[in-house]
């Protein structure tokens, strides 16, 4: 195991940020810490990095107990949401900072920085200052800076959170490619389930200072362990006392066993998929996702009466007390 967190708790005044959290991260894996804001995911990352000291529990990195080792000697690379670029240094000096602290020879630093700038596609920007870079470029520089010291683990705290949607998408793909090439154990924090699903091999869902579930993306989506996880990782429709994914509901033109009557209120064509908003006889609103072909076949339009049949295999019994 590359990172082992055992029974970590952390309190900020009255606020409990981490409540007896344990976590294992495999060597060379790409893991996402996913959760709503205030769920403790960033605090957990900062505890692993040594930027925050846990009140109790231990952190091991590559088998060594690092719980009380200061950040400067943990050998972790950390990337901040707002880049934390050294504003008074050029891109070259930013990337070379860790190496120059380690007093490596100049020529070696130069060579290594050149390689890294190549890796993050910033070769032509070595002499610029961070203020002269775009947000995406700054974040790539921050990544190169973190990688320069060959960290045991790479930790990213909402790395794409401050970027606009297009750059974000591009950087996601790029991070996956990078991980395939560099293969450093990577953990990143995000509140965006799509980002977690798209990038990570393993997702750790956090909620209210605890780990809610740990699973690969597909398993998490198909077999959520709790109502919270089910709702958090994708859209849900409520059918009776069950929670179902909108694409796990079949629309039938005629009554059938186990199907519930509903009226079509609105049909949204979103390219390949069609989103149908319906209202059941007892007044509940349900959103269903069908393919374009199915929508055409059913000749769906507002006002039409249809029957809904959920696929129970992916359903979860709703628990009204704990949302």
């Amino acid at each position: 195991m590359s990172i082992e967190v055992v029974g970590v708790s952390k309190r900020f005044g009255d606020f409990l940020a981490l409540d007896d959290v344990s976590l294992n991260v495999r060597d060379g894996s790409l893991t996402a810490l996913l959760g709503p804001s205030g769920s403790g995911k960033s605090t957990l990352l900062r505890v692993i990095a040594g930027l925050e000291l846990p009140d109790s529990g231990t952190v091991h990195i590559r088998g060594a107990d690092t719980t009380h080792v200061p950040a400067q000697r943990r050998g972790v690379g950390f990337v901040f949401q707002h880049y934390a670029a050294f504003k008074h240094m050029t891109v070259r000096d930013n990337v070379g900072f860790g190496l120059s602290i380690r007093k490596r020879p100049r020529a070696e630093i130069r060579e290594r920085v050149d390689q890294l700038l190549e890796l993050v596609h910033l070769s032509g920007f070595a002499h610029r200052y961070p203020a002269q870079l775009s947000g995406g470029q700054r974040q790539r520089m921050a990544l190169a800076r973190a990688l320069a010291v060959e960290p045991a683990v790479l930790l990213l705290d909402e790395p794409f959170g401050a970027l606009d949607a297009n750059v974000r998408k591009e950087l996601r793909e790029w991070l996956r490619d990078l991980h395939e090439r560099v293969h450093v154990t990577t953990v990143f924090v995000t509140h965006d389930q799509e980002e977690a699903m798209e990038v990570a091999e393993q997702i750790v869902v956090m909620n209210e200072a605890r780990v809610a579930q740990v699973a690969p993306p597909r398993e998490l989506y198909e077999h959520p362990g709790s109502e919270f996880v089910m709702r958090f990782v994708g859209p849900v429709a409520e059918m009776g006392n069950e929670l179902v994914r909108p694409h796990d509901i079949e629309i039938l033109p005629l009554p059938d066993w186990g199907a519930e009557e509903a009226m079509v209120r609105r049909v949204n064509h979103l390219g390949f998929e069609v989103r149908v908003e319906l209202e059941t006889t007892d007044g509940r609103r349900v959103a269903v996702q069908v393919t374009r072909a199915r929508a055409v076949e059913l000749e769906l339009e507002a006002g039409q009466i249809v029957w809904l049949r959920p696929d129970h295999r992916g359903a979860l019994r709703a628990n009204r007390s704990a949302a």
Partner: protein
Amino acid sequence: MRASRRLRAVALAYLALLLVLPVGMVFYRTFEHGVAAAWAAVTTPDAIHAFWLTLLMVAVAVPANTVFGIGCALVLVRQRFPGKALLNSLVDVPFAVSPVVVGLALVLLYGRAGWFGTWLADHGIQVIFAPLGMILATIFISLPFVVREVVPVLREVGSEQEEAASTLGASPWQAFWRVTLPSIRWGVAYGVILTTARALGEFGAVSVVSGKLAGQTETLPIHVEQAFQNFDLAGAYSASVVLAALALLTVLSMNLIKREEVTR
């Protein structure tokens, strides 16, 4: 449009009447009888001594308050502890208290009859009526500037860059020198300049503890006042011009820094 022009005229007239005219008058009076006469008046032994003593005040007070100011600003911005609000207000005391009171307080502490007076006298250290006391007074009076200039800059910079430096292997000391200090350098520079200006011009507190001994404990401002009291108008005016020139130099360097900061 017309209102703004009128406002500008009022502002300029105000400045001319209260600032330009008096200072211009001093310059005019100084060089009234030629440069040679003015030069002779500022090169008397007492005037030269006052000049060097003033620079000594600056040379000690400015570094002392720069180091203290940066440290104090770091504590105020980065740390949480009981009594922080008190420390924050204490820093402003030199702004609020009249310099004469500061001088008197120092006399009460370090003077012959003061708390530390006897002990100091026994050990042969003279504070009051000596440069040491004047330095203490200058440090006290010019203490808040660096703190007040650095605190907002430090707050704006935040601690993320330092955290990044520490994850990259920098010790707190390395992070301070290579990341924190460079990122607050303009704030420090402003603070240093304001401290210098204050230390150069301080009269009240310093004059109380100095004893005003010509050639011994006279700084330039005290020298000006003494010369004026003794009807040595030429001496007073020309020493004033030297002071004004030093002040001008500090203001000029401030403007240079401003320009540098803008181009960054």
